[in-house]
């Protein structure tokens, strides 16, 4: 027989003198030779004289008396003192079987790959079996015991009642994490052992008895607090993003209801405390990201509910509600591919509520946040990813895009996905990555044309970096994507298009560079910013310069990343000089890369964390200003609705295209809408979605007039107003800032 290994038995106790004494008795009664083990008892600042009692009755035992209760991590003190090859950690309310030490030592000697060993547990009084093997559901955070009667590793963790492990494990995986005071230390230890490639094994050959000791958390004040804290902590440490979100959701919103119904115990507050503890004890950058996320999501949801449905969204709605074949015809006359309109088309089958129409934008926007973080995390570093995601969460542009029923969020989502997949493809050229890349490429192209610009920097990187992705493979990939997109290109060449109202490069380029920080691409464009108050202009301009510094710094240092943004921009800027193709709003799909570059640049400076906080505060303030100041809200159509309802069935006439389609959406079929001025959309589009310029019918007795000076030829408008005021009497007038609404009735003039 081989030599028996030396075992160090480490026992932690707190105010349970009798339990410890019975445990020690059971140890010294065991069949293992007394010379081959040592016993270390750690007294976690007990007040019942445990130390004295042990010293009196078992003088061989090494007792370590602590001055303060350290919780479970106090075991570490014992681990450090332990001399044995095998450490056997045990709680004080357990007694062991006679052959326990021998069986355990045999198992540990026969299988060197065992990192952690557990045994059968019986209840001291009832002799019922209590399983130490436990499953931990990483999606719900629910812990469920699992019974086994054979040797197995098919469980998630071993309860900390009895842990047997070789001492070298401590060197490999570290000691017990001092952040777990009570609960959570055992799963944490098991998971760490597993992660290092060792086996965590349960053997049914021997057993221990477990009683209801006084040091169990029964007498522990914040028992449940710590329990829930540990659940969150384990998932936040070892889980992936989906599991983190899912567990937060389940543990806060689903499980407490179950507990309330089944055990009649309210656990909401305890769970919240657990979550809050985890937030409080996270890293600084995580805190920054979480705070930005919370504010960003609140802003997005607020915008989703309160923003008025403006022209672009109404255009989306009127196109998407057409039957499919007509829809494609209508989209062909527009400057965008059909994917987004198709998504909205199917959403309209459920409801035509504006919240639901905007919801895809919000979802894709949040998905961008995640993939932006993931891409930078995987290919640059974690901190930059967090800063970039925080900036994107608070950016006025992103908030705007997420609450607008327009295709840019969708396209930006595919841009980020495509970049992430591209770097994956370069690193690891396999069929899965190629297929995913091609798929994302096709979907991206079908959501916005500017997406194609992304292939330019990609090609550049493929040529520059000599990886396994050779030019031949790359050409095949590009060809496949192009082939799948060619039908649409072919169709759209044969149809008449909207004349793009894009500005010249000289105007569009500064707007593009400023928009991620300052917004200004929706109804209120950057061109109207000079009308703002002087302080705003100064503030906006300096903040923009502040960001440009980081941007410029990163331009020099991180060439591959900046190429992704700069090459498309330069190309568009060049052609934009001659052709009206450069739309700052369209280019906003590349804005996530702008934030990635800025974040990377920020980390090259000295006071990174302070710079990050200052920049986030700045961008947050800019976003808030754009929420609060009425200058940035467009035509207040929602405020007009109750006014219009006071006169049922009255016709609504519009002087501007800007209010026409949106009002048509809001009133649905209850009011007739008439556009009096020239419709700027091309004939082909109007044919599909309606909105011909109509002659004003003088027979109409009463009508509402919505008047704004935006998007209309002023001469035409004045002539129109003059004729209306001549023939009709003004009855009601409401001035709503950027637009006015008035009620007219036919004049009863006496001749």
């Amino acid at each position, binding site marked *: 027989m081989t030599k028996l290994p030396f075992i160090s038995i480490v026992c932690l106790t707190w105010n349970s003198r009798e339990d410890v004494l019975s445990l020690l008795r059971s140890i010294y009664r065991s069949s293992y030779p007394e010379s081959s083990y040592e016993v270390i008892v750690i007294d976690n600042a007990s007040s019942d004289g445990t130390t004295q009692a042990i010293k009196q009755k078992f003088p061989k035992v090494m007792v370590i008396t602590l001055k303060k209760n350290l919780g479970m991590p106090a075991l570490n003190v014992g681990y450090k003192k332990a001399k044995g090859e095998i450490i056997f950690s045990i709680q004080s309310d357990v007694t062991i079987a006679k052959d326990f030490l021998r069986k355990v030592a045999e198992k540990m000697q026969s299988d060197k790959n065992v990192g952690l060993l557990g045994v059968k547990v019986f209840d001291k009084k009832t002799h019922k079996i209590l399983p130490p093997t436990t499953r931990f559901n990483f999606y719900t955070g629910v812990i469920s015991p699992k019974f086994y009667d054979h040797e197995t590793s098919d469980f998630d963790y071993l309860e900390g009642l009895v842990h047997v492990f070789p001492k070298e494990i401590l060197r490999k995986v570290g000691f017990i994490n001092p952040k777990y005071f009570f609960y959570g230390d055992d799963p944490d230890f098991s998971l760490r052992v597993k992660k290092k490639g060792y086996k965590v094994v349960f053997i049914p050959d021997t057993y221990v008895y477990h009683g209801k000791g006084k040091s169990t958390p029964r007498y522990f004040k914040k028992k449940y607090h710590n329990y829930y804290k540990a659940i969150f902590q384990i998932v936040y440490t070892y889980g992936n993003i989906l599991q983190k979100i899912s567990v937060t959701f389940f543990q806060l919103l689903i499980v407490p*209801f179950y507990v309330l119904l089944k055990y009649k115990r309210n656990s909401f507050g305890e769970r919240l405390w657990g979550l809050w503890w985890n937030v409080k004890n996270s890293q600084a950058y995580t805190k920054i990201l979480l705070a930005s996320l919370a504010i960003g999501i609140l802003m997005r949801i607020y915008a989703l509910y309160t923003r008025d449905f403006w022209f672009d969204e109404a255009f989306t709605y009127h196109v998407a509600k057409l039957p499919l074949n007509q829809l494609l015809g209508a989209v062909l006359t527009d400057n965008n591919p059909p994917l987004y309109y198709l998504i909205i088309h199917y959403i309209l089958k459920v*409801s035509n509520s*504006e919240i639901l129409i905007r919801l895809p934008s919000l979802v894709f926007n949040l998905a961008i946040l995640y993939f932006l973080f993931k891409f930078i995390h995987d290919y640059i570093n974690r901190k930059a990813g967090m800063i970039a995601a925080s900036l994107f969460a608070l950016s006025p542009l992103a908030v705007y895009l997420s609450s607008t029923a327009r295709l840019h969020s969708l396209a930006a989502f595919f841009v980020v996905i495509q970049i992430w997949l591209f770097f994956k493809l370069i690193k690891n050229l396999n069929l899965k990555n190629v297929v995913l890349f091609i798929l994302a490429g096709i979907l991206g192209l079908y959501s916005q044309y500017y997406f194609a610009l992304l292939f330019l920097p990609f090609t550049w990187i493929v040529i520059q970096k000599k990886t396994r992705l050779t030019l031949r493979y790359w050409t095949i990939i590009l060809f496949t994507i192009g082939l799948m997109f060619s039908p649409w290109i072919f169709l759209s060449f044969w149809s008449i298009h909207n004349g793009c109202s894009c500005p010249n490069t000289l105007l569009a380029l500064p707007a593009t560079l400023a928009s991620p920080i300052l917004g200004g691409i929706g109804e209120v464009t950057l061109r109207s910013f000079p009308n703002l108050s002087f302080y705003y202009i100064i503030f906006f301009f300096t903040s923009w310069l502040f960001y440009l510094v980081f941007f410029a710094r990163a331009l020099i240092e991180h060439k591959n990343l900046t190429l992704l943004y700069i090459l498309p921009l330069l190309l568009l800027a060049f052609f934009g000089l001659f052709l009206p193709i450069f739309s700052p709003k369209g280019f906003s799909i590349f804005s996530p890369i702008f934030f990635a570059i800025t974040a990377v640049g920020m980390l090259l400076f000295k006071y990174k964390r302070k710079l990050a906080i200052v920049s986030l505060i700045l961008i947050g303030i800019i976003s808030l200003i754009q929420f609060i100041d009425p200058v940035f809200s467009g035509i207040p159509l929602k405020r007009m609705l109750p006014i219009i309802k006071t006169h049922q069935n009255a016709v609504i006439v519009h002087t501007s295209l800007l209010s026409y389609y949106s009002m048509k959406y809001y009133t649905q079929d209850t009011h007739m809408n008439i556009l009096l001025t020239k419709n700027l959309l091309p004939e082909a589009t109007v044919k599909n979605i309606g909105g011909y310029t109509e002659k004003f019918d003088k027979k109409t007795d009463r009508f509402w007039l919505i008047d704004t000076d935006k998007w209309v030829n002023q001469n035409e408008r004045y002539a129109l107003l003059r004729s209306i005021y001549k023939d009709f009497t003004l009855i009601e007038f409401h001035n709503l800032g950027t637009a006015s609404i008035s009620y007219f009735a036919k004049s009863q003039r006496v001749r």
Partner: protein
Amino acid sequence: MKKLILNTIFACPRCKTLLAPKTYGSCPKCKFEFKKKDGIWDFLYIPRGQSKRSQKQYDNMHRNDFGGPQDGSYEILASIARGNKTVDIACGEGIIEKLAPEAVGVEFSLNALTKAKANGAKYLVLADAHALPFRENSFDIAISSGNLEHFADPEKAIKEMARVSKIQVLIVHRYPPFPFARLIYDLITKVFKIIHQPIEKPISQKSLEKMLQRSGLHIVFKGVWTLPFNYGRVIKFLPELNGISSCSFVISIKN
């Protein structure tokens, strides 16, 4: 169409004895008392405790504006009712009777009926749908629009409709046509208790068909009707789903 003379078609709601009252009286067999007050016949006999509770709640709800969808469905139902001997089960505030005044409105909330009277309804009867105070086959058509799911015992109500009329027009809310819809719906209405009306138990198309068959009715037409889900924003922050097929629309005839 022969003109409907309301007091010739009454029967005792409890024991179905034929009655021909002028203004008030009682059933000769079971001594059930009934009366006519302010143009509304009172034949209220509620056999089920659950209905009694929900009757009280409806009475309270009808003190305020109750409303109904303005998507034109009531106009269509009224056009079916017009020119036929029609009974409108759970007529509420008389939206159909406003457009088809000859239809007989049955409702168990007095507050709703007073409003219906003001809306111009001619024939109004205060009664429970589980115990209709009419003789057999006294109507051509019975309309039940979006209320069967709020009844304590929908099958009993269908049987009553089958008894008094030849043709039945039913609009019944069903579970939304999404995956897990039933689970989510039950979670919202039963666990979180977010409800619009006292009883909310949508009836699936299949179980509705079975109920109709058990009542001896032959289904002639079955389709869908799109009343908005989350109507009037029961859950305030969620949008109204007005594009999904939320209701079964069934027309049946007696075999």
